[in-house]
């Protein structure tokens, strides 16, 4: 970790922060304002997706992503400023994702931000992309600490207790594939294209979720971990047994896959709730926040909503545009850290891997997804 510089933060000062995100295949910049009471407001939020550039490859190609980020970052930042009707002089601090993710892209965004911070002399914050996801619910819904977080994206599937800014307890993670990745692989197996999550959901709508039986890996186990590679293999077998070009069968496989994923989420999240309650037994209405691109899935939301009702939780799903990769969450996480008086030096290292809870037990198969 880089040395932290102190950011002189007087209690009642609002903060306007520029955020940059480039850790995967979205080039994004945003301006967010955090008032003295801790309320957030998005002044602008620009995202340029590279989906079209990666689609022919059936997934994100790191070198292609890094090249595109460098080409577009400065223009996206300029647009974020313009749409917020601000010049850089109206910004109090500069921030960027410093990890985890695809290192080439992270470097591009991080260096753009460092360059901006150097010449403007403004404080700089290197943000953990996962912390961006974790704190979004405070920007959108003003959720108070502590809360339970289910992070389900293309790169991560984790259950965490968000205790405070910079303070996370990981209860579980995937041992292999992330859930979004499993959706994408399923879509690929069925020839549905990339990104696969929305395509699988669309197909599933007309399918019979009981037509095919698929496994629910780890369901019933005492921990809060996930595993989706077995599910993906089962989908592969189901596809091989049948003909993937039969639209009815394709829909049935999608529906069955989505239902298996939903059951896993329900079971694993339920267990995490029990652990959360054991740690924080004084909360009147505990909150479950669901973040990450997979949270867009209506069936998964429905299942989690039912779980929350049964367990007396409030479910908070930030709007889709703030659940997938975006820079507003990066600017917001930076603002939250600055409000606590922390900033970073310009020698911060880009990190492909950066767990939110460095003390969590190692999970060998999880790799960068931990």
């Amino acid at each position: 970790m880089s040395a932290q510089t102190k950011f002189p933060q007087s209690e009642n000062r609002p903060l306007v922060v520029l955020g940059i995100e480039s850790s995967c295949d979205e080039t994004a910049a945003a301006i967010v304002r955090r008032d003295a009471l801790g309320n957030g407001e998005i002044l602008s939020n620009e995202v340029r997706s590279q989906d079209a550039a990666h689609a022919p490859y059936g997934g994100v190609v790191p070198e292609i992503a890094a090249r595109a980020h460098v080409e577009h970052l400065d223009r996206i930042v300029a647009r974020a400023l313009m749409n917020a009707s601000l010049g850089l002089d109206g910004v109090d601090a500069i921030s960027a994702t410093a990890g985890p993710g695809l290192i080439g892209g992270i470097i591009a965004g991080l260096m753009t931000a460092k360059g901006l911070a150097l010449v403007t002399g403004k404080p700089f914050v290197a943000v953990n992309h996962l912390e961006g996801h974790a704190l979004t619910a405070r920007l959108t819904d003003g959720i108070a600490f502590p809360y339970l977080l289910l992070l389900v994206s293309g790169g991560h599937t984790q259950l965490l207790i968000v205790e405070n800014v910079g303070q996370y307890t990981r209860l579980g993670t995937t041992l292999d594939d992330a859930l979004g990745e499993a959706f994408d692989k399923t879509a690929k197996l069925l020839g549905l294209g990339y990104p696969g999550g929305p395509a699988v959901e669309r197909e599933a709508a007309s399918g019979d979720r009981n037509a095919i039986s698929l496994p629910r890996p780890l369901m019933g186990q005492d921990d809060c971990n996930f595993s989706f590679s077995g599910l993906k293999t089962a989908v592969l077998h189901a596809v091989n047994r049948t003909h993937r070009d039969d639209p009815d069968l394709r829909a049935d496989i999608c529906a069955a896959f989505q239902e298996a994923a939903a059951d896993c989420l329900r079971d694993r999240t339920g267990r995490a709730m029990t652990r959360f309650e054991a740690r924080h037994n004084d909360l009147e209405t505990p909150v479950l926040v669901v973040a990450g691109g997979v949270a867009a899935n209506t069936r998964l939301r429905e299942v989690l909503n039912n779980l929350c009702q049964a367990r007396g939780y409030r479910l908070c799903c930030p709007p889709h545009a703030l659940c997938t990769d975006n820079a507003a969450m990066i600017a917001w996480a930076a603002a939250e850290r600055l409000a606590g008086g922390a900033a970073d030096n310009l020698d911060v290292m880009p990190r492909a891997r950066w767990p939110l809870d460095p003390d969590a037990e190692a999970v060998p198969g999880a790799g960068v997804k931990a």
Partner: protein
Amino acid sequence: MRVLAFDTAMPACSVAVVECGGAGAEILAHRFEPRARGHAEVLMDQIAETMSDAGVGYSDLDRLAVTTGPGTFTGVRIGVAAARGMALGTGLPLVGVTTLEALAAAGAGLTGGSVAAAIDARRGEVYVQCFSNDLTPLSEPCVVTPADAADVLRGHTPLIVGTGARIMRDVCGEAAGFTFDAAAPELSDACHVACRGAVKPSDGPPPSPFYLRAPDAKLPQRKDG
């Protein structure tokens, strides 16, 4: 014209503030540090220190210059992304200079004739381009095997500079009429980036990385089709 230039495209990190004028160039401050990695971490401190050594602020500069490659993909992006961020933050014009041209500029003083920059591109290839002594390009930049590079350069009888010079000498010796000089620079340096940057038009689009190699990515084989 006062130029802040930097280079992270090769196994070195260099920064210079140079007063480039008609009569010549005066280096106000300069840093050159060989390093294989870690450019992203050290670059900003290097720039800040060089600026402070030169005793100038960003508003005292006339333009920024950066190497665009070819070099390591990551190193090229570190420099170009930082430079474009700085240009946005200062409103200063930003120009790109290739590592090949910066190297040739460094070699031009060692000879009265043409200069070829050759950079080790790994995978058995070199990035290569030939320039006249006044740095007019005599060949297109390309990435080729040393033997093919010799074909590109044949007829120009240049002094060969850069990390690829040693490779070229091992492969084709001096037979082809090339000259080698033990004092020839191996790595590009920000001082030359500044001077070359000073003479380029600055009203174009922001400089893009110059990779000379396509990304390593294979299109999936279609099973049906």
